[in-house]
């Protein structure tokens, strides 16, 4: 049988096929394993494929399905970003410093998926410690964009996005600190969700910027992203920033706000054109689209590049050659620290550690870090006011990225790479949910590349984002 008949199925379609016994979980897993063998040499979405374990998990899922105890994700083949822990498995965050680190426990999201008897296909490539927007910062070589292998898949969850786009898994998990799910989802033409901060447990996620990080789904459809999100969200006493679980609220009415003054510069003309076309189609479907102003949102990227390195430099202090990972021998303990970290961390990670150390150092912390927290509070308030239930809009729309996928090696200067996340970082600063949905394509040098629209919602109002996202899918069809 042609494996693509199975790998083309969405989660929802595979669920139906598995429940109707049209295929087994083992056949489904085998189809993906075959697809990975054939295509992943070129794409390099995976750092490791857990072939034998995946087959064993698929057999276990088949037994459950026969016994009638299957759940929403039982037997569905998924991939995990390499910074999400699975007990006994390597979790390297695509870094040399954790090359031989085997996780000693399951992340909460892993545990939740295991309880549903999913099939884990493997761990996906990423920018080292989730620092980057292209996967070029992986210590194990970049992932390629399935739409054009001369281009990047985005990042940092580039492996997770490329695997979904290339049909090398049904869906995947990534993490998003400043756009690391939504930007690669946009560049690869798949759906990506940054959930409300605190709604998905970060326990067992290798930390980068702890006040910004969230785990979220990458999937082929909005419906699939919702299925996966519902499987992983919920309160977790092991994550002190976890918020209490509440029932899903019904989707809000249909008011969309567009921060026009923020869309002015640096955005490519045909990206903006696709964005406007999508808004026009939503208007035809009965949405009200109005301009809004978020006066300080344009400072988000600068705020982000203070807050994130500050938190990352603190979080990465734990990699010292003593408790886990690489350890480089030296004369004394200070030498072990410095040498291990110098040898184990890649260039961008070292750069961010130094920036973080600078903005936190005595004499600079007030002017940089404390000031950034104040602007962050202001940006968060501006979002809350714009999304006010009585006088505001229900969602805010922007393009997800200012440009389609760029070429490998094109953005060697760190600041030009940082600018790829201009529309996604404000969301993380505010801790509110956002979804990226494919909304069309454009041509570059004879290749067809996807574009995407981002919808930003109220805290815990993912259901409205899913509802608008489904409408975009219907009208883009």
């Amino acid at each position, binding site marked *: 049988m042609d494996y693509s008949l199975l790998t083309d199925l969405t989660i929802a379609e595979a669920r139906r096929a598995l429940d109707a016994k049209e295929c087994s979980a083992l056949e489904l897993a085998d189809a993906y394993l075959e697809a990975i063998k054939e295509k992943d040499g070129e794409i390099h979405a995976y750092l490791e494929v857990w072939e034998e374990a995946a087959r064993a998990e698929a057999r276990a899922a088949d037994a459950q399905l026969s016994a009638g105890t299957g759940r929403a994700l039982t037997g569905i083949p998924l991939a995990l970003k390499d910074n999400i822990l699975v007990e006994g498995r390597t979790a390297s965050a695509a870094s040399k410093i954790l090359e031989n680190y085997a996780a000693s426990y399951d992340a909460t999201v892993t545990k939740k998926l295991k309880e549903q008897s999913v099939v884990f296909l493997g761990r996906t490539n990423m920018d080292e410690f989730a620092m980057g927007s292209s996967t070029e910062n992986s210590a194990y070589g970049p992932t390629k964009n399935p739409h054009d292998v001369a281009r990047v898949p985005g990042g940092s969850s580039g492996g997770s996005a490329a695997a979904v786009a290339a049909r090398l898994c049904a869906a995947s998990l990534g993490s998003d600190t400043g756009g690391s799910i939504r930007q690669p989802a946009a560049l690869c033409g798949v759906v990506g969700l940054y959930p409300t901060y605190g709604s998905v447990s970060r326990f067992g996620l290798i930390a980068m910027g702890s006040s910004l990080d969230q785990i979220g789904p990458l999937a082929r459809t909005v419906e699939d992203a919702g299925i996966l999100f519902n499987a992983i969200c919920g309160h977790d006493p092991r994550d002190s920033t976890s918020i209490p679980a509440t029932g899903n609220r019904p989707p809000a009415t249909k008011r969309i706000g567009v921060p026009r003054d923020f869309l002015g510069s640096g955005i490519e003309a045909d990206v903006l054109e696709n964005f406007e076309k999508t808004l026009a189609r939503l208007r035809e479907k009965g949405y009200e689209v109005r301009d809004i102003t978020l006066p300080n949102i344009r400072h988000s990227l600068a705020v982000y590049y203070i807050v994130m390195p500050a938190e990352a430099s603190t979080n990465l202090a734990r990699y010292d050659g003593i408790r886990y990972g690489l350890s480089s021998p030296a004369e004394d303990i200070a030498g072990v620290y410095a040498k291990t970290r110098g040898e184990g961390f890649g260039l961008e990670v070292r750069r961010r550690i130094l920036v973080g150390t600078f903005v936190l150092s005595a004499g600079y912390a007030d002017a940089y870090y404390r000031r950034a927290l104040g602007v962050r509070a202001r940006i968060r308030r501006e979002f809350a006011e714009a999304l006010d239930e009585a006088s505001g809009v229900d969602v805010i729309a922007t393009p997800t990225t200012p440009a389609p996928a760029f070429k490998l090696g094109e953005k060697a200067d760190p600041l030009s790479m940082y600018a790829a996340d201009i529309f996604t970082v404000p969301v993380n*600063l505010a801790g509110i949910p956002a979804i990226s949905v494919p909304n069309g394509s454009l041509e570059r040098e004879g290749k067809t590349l996807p574009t995407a629209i981002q919808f930003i919602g109220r805290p815990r109002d993912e259901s409205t984002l899913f509802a608008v996202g489904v409408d975009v899918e219907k009208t883009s069809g």
Partner: protein
Amino acid sequence: MTQVDIESLAKLARLEVSNEERSRMEEDIPAIVEFVETIQKAEADAPPSAGSTGSPHSHIGLQNVMREDENPHESGKFTERMLSGAPKVVDGRVAVRQVLKRSP
């Protein structure tokens, strides 16, 4: 442009930086600092109290709390698993190079 002393930052961050890399960082880091300095032009609300990370929980009125320090688990229960990732282990403990030196 703000002067950035890469050598002392590297020391603070316990990070070995080669000479070649130091000259690269001496270009990169001030450029990043110059960019983030644009926040001085932004409007700001009162920053959260000192020691807070400003984590975005204010919208639901939550704050970090520690659990009570009680009901400890049985001693040694997790020791093996905790040590499984350590580069060097001696007798159920993490081994490190000498930290303190006897004065001469």
